[in-house]
């Protein structure tokens, strides 16, 4: 695991030096503008608007970073041949992959935490938020982070065997499909054959369920989020990431480099 950590820290350093964290400036501007505007256009729902806006921004910015940097984690190293010298060191390919994954997740964690601090600052500017709101927002931020880790794992998987453009399409496609898994599972139509219904049902279990990570509405309304859901989402994200990363490692370990 020590070697995984070395690769992860270097991946984080790459993100920092490539100015990935500059997006925080954009986020800060959005939050400042929103805080000023919301106070003028909304009456009594400032907190809800700020929470929704802030969580959406955290999610979208995180997703953009996860997808666009995630798909290049391996393919960029292969194209530029920067991993040739590295793989000649005593490091397993799966350690390299896990390190790349860990490095980007670390970057996203730092990024998300910084944005969450920004969100809480914006909330404090509006009015004194209740503890229940702050707790829900924290859980919502945590769920966004779990979702981003899952997206990074998927992007990394595609990065191991296809081009960055196709990786973006596949990852984005899976993400969008993953937002509708519950609909797929419960969707019933008389015109649909039994086989098709069965296929849809199986697909709904296979696809990553991103719907479960969306608790934005609950956070905005200050509703408490059940502990069971936190445990369930944590376990689900960990298990799904493990399976996807194992698949990525299986592909990458057998891959001939150019």
């Amino acid at each position: 695991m020590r070697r995984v950590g070395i690769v992860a820290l270097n991946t984080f350093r790459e993100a920092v030096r490539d100015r990935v964290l500059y997006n925080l400036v954009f986020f800060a501007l959005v939050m400042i503008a929103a805080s000023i505007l919301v106070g003028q256009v909304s009456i009594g729902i400032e907190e809800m608007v700020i929470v929704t806006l802030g969580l959406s921004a955290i999610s979208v910015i995180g997703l953009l970073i996860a997808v666009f940097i995630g798909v290049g984690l391996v393919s960029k190293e292969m194209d530029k041949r920067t991993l040739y010298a590295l793989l000649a060191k005593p490091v397993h390919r799966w350690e390299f992959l896990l390190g790349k994954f860990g490095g980007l997740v670390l970057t996203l964690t730092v990024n998300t935490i910084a944005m969450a601090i920004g969100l809480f600052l914006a909330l404090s500017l509006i009015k004194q938020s209740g503890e229940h709101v702050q707790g829900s927002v924290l859980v919502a931020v945590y769920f966004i982070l779990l979702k981003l880790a899952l997206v990074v794992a998927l992007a990394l998987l595609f990065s191991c065997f296809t081009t960055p453009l196709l990786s973006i399409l596949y990852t984005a496609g899976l993400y969008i499909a993953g937002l509708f898994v519950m609909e797929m599972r419960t969707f019933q139509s008389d015109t649909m054959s039994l086989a098709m219904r069965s296929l849809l049902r199986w697909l709904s279990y296979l696809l990553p369920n991103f719907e479960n990570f969306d608790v934005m509405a609950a956070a905005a309304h200050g509703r408490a989020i059940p502990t069971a859901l936190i445990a369930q989402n944590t376990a689900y994200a960990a298990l799904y990431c493990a399976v996807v990363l194992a698949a990525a490692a299986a592909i990458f370990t057998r891959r001939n480099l150019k």
Partner: protein
Amino acid sequence: MATAAIEIENLTKDYPFGFLHLKKRTSLEGLTMSVEDGEVFGFLGPNGAGKSTTIKLLVGLIFPTAGTARILGKSISDISMHADIGYLPEQPYFYDYLTAAELLDYFARFHDLSAQERKARVDRMLKKVGLETARKIQLRKYSKGMLQRVGLAQAILHDPKVVILDEPMSGLDPVGRREVRDIILELKQAGKTVLFSTHILSDAEMLCDRVGVIVGGKLRGVGAPDEIVGLKAEAMEILFEYAGAANGLGGLLSKVTQTGTRYRTQVAEADLYATVQQLCGVRAKILSVTQVKATLEEYFMHLVEGDRAQATAVEVSGK
């Protein structure tokens, strides 16, 4: 009897191609050879001959279709073997957001070295490859030659027993080439095994105990450089200065090329002494006498004459 540091047995690499990957192109065919412990071995061949393929197979960047190889007695699939090898990729490229010192420190971390030892080694290596003053510059600002030096430094940073260099002289100016040659000789003196690929004959002649010539994915010969690629002198070239009237050169006049007061002529080896005497007789100042050899390219072409069709295939499939 010397033990083999690198043993290669029937190593073959096919690359599938076509829509369904049903066709295959053989990049390396049944390579069997060994590199002895403490030996400097040159891998010679034209572009696309299979040199880099062999090296990539040895360091585990690609996987063989058939055959096996062992380095220091360990299979090339055994990752622990990598602790004892150093590798310089062809036309190396590294993380350009790092400085040379940071990159070397990063690679050193994979070799279980203490922070103090890492720093000492990084400093030593940067000095060895002449990059001390550029140690804090990001690699994105490095020239090709400087990157090659960094590549060499990372390859020998952990004091490996076997050093594998893919075209180590590529992209270097004459000074850089000489420095790399000196480093290879130092490694030899330190008892390291060095395998390097090149298509420059003089490098191989100067450094190698043995060379292997590979053409079209097949090994065409292994032995001492003189035995394998010892190209006979085709003629002797004499460079001289002559201030007198051109017709004073007599019979030589028809064979010389004049540039100012300097003349150049090629004569058969058997006629060398007679010609030199003749030139001394007319008070010409002899500047140099050198052997005219066939180029390595001509040698390679000679090798593939027998199976030109295959040579053509190699050219077509060349990267």
